[in-house]
C-alpha cells in the first residue's frame, strides 16, 4: 500500500471533479426543465401531445445511458451533419436521457394532487393555466422534492459514464493515474470514498426532505 499516490496526483484528480460538477449541474438543470415540460405533456389529455411525449419517455427509459452517450457523440453528428464536440454532446445526451426520468417524477407529483383540488379550483372560476400554476404545480413540487433530490444524486453518479468517451472527469482521471502508477487498490478506494461522501450528503438531504414532508399535514 502506498497512499502517497493520492497526495501526488491530488491536483490532477481534483481537476476532474470540477468537470464532474459542471456536467452534473448542466444535466440536472437542463434535464429538470425538459422533464417538467415532458411531465406536463404526459398528463395531457390531447393525444398528439400525450403520445409523442410518452414515446420519448419510454424510449429513453429503455436505453442504457452509455448507449445514449455513444449516439450523441458518434452518430448524431453523422445524421445532422455537424459535430458537437465531446463536452456539449455529453451534456445533450445527459439532458435528453435524464429528462425522461424527471418527467416520470413530475408526472407522479402532478397526479399526487387529488382531483378534488383541481375540481374545486375550476369551480372557483380559474382557467386551466391558473389551476396548474396556482394550485397543482405548487403542491406537486412539494411532493416531488425528495424524489428530485434522489434523482440528482443518481445523475451525479451517472456523470462517471462520461468516462466512456474519454471526457476527463473525475473517474477518467483516476483511471489515467492508475495506468501510470499501477496502484489500483488505493486509487479506486479513494474514488469510491469521494463519491460516497458527496452522494451520501445528497441522500441524507433527500431523506430529511422526505421526513419533513411526512411530518407536514397532507
Amino acid at each position, binding site marked *: 500500500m502506498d497512499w502517497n499516490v493520492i497526495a501526488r496526483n491530488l491536483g490532477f484528480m481534483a481537476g476532474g471533479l470540477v468537470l464532474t460538477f459542471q456536467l452534473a449541474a448542466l444535466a440536472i438543470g437542463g434535464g429538470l426543465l425538459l422533464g417538467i415540460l415532458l411531465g406536463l405533456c404526459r398528463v395531457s389529455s390531447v393525444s398528439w401531445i400525450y403520445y409523442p411525449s410518452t414515446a420519448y419517455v419510454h*424510449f429513453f427509459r429503455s436505453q442504457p445511458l452509455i448507449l445514449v452517450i455513444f449516439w450523441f457523440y458518434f452518430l448524431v453528428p453523422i445524421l445532422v451533419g455537424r459535430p458537437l464536440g465531446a463536452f456539449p454532446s455529453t451534456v445533450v445526451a445527459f439532458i435528453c436521457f435524464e429528462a425522461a426520468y424527471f418527467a416520470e417524477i413530475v408526472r407522479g407529483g402532478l397526479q399526487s394532487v387529488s382531483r378534488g383540488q383541481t375540481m374545486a379550483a375550476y369551480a372557483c372560476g380559474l382557467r386551466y393555466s391558473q389551476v396548474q400554476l396556482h394550485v397543482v404545480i405548487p403542491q406537486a413540487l412539494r411532493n416531488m422534492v425528495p424524489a428530485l433530490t434522489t434523482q440528482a444524486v443518481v445523475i451525479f453518479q451517472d456523470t462517471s459514464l462520461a468516462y466512456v468517451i474519454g471526457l476527463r472527469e473525475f473517474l477518467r482521471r483516476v483511471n489515467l493515474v492508475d495506468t501510470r502508477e499501477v496502484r489500483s487498490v488505493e486509487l479506486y478506494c479513494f474514488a469510491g470514498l469521494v463519491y460516497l461522501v458527496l452522494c451520501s450528503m445528497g441522500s441524507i438531504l433527500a431523506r430529511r426532505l422526505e421526513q419533513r414532508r411526512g411530518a407536514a399535514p397532507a
Partner: protein
Amino acid sequence: MTAKRIFTSYSLVAVLFTLFGMSNALWAESVLEKIEKSGKVNIGYREGAVPFGYMNDKGEWVGFDMDLGTELVKALEAKFNKRIEHTRTPMNPKNRIPLVANGTIDAGIGATTITLEREGAIDFSLPYFLTGTKLLVAKGSPIRDYRGLAGKKVGVGSGSTANIKGLQKAIDSKMIDPPCEMVLFEDHTKGFLGLQQGKVDAYFTDEAMLAGMRAKAPKPDDYEIVGGFLTYEPYGIILPPGDSKWRDFVNATLIGMFKDGTFEKTYNKWFGPGGQLILPMPEEYRVMLKVLSFPD
C-alpha cells in the same frame, strides 16, 4: 399501461427515427476552409499510447504525435497568417475512426496503422512512422515467441483491428496451437496494467508502443519485449474522407518536416538517445522517409 399504448408510442418513435434518418442536411465544406473561417482546429490524440500520446507523471498530456500536431498547427498559422486555436480531443483505438468520420475531429494523430480496409471509411496521410508487432512479457516468462502463446491469455487493444487480425491469422494458420485467449483492453496502457497485475500472460501490439510502456513502467526491468515482427505497421494521420485539399496540406506539411530535419529532431526527442525511450530508427524506416521526401 396497456399493450396498445406501448405499441402506439413505439411506432411513433420508429416514424420519428426514419424522418430523422432521411433528413439530408448540409454537405461538409473542406476542413481547410472551415479552419480558416473559424480559426480553430480539433485534432485527436491518444492518451494511452506511450510515447505517441500519454499522460506524463505531472498529469500533462504529451507525446510524439502531439508534437507533430503542434507542427501542423504552426503550418496552418503560417498559411492563414493568423492564430489558430488548437483543441486536443482524446481518442482511443476503438473510437478514432468514428470520430474522424463524423467530423468531431479534423485529424487524428494517434499511432494508426494504414490499412486498406480503413481507407474505405476515412483517408490517410502519407506514412510517418514504421514499426511492427511484438510481444511484451514479464522477465523470465516462458513465452519467447508467438508459438509460446499457445493456450495463454494475450492482451490486445480493442479496436486495434490490425493487431487483432494479425494475431487471428497466426491462430488460424496453427502457428499458435491451441489458440490463445484474447483479452480486450480499451487502450494499450490499460492492457499493460493488466500485464503488470498478471491478468494476461503477454501483451501484443506495435513494438514502439511496447517499448514506450516498458520505459514508463514503475519497474521497467521486470518486463521484456520478445518475438520477431508478426506484421509491419506503417502509421498515418487519419483524415476525413474525400477532402483532398486538407489531405494535400497535411501531406505537404509532413514532407516539409521530413526534408528540413524537424521530423528527425522530433523523433530523436522521443526515441533518440536521451529521449523517453531508445528506439533507433530502423533502416527501412529511414528509407521510407527518404522516399517520401518528394521534391517541391
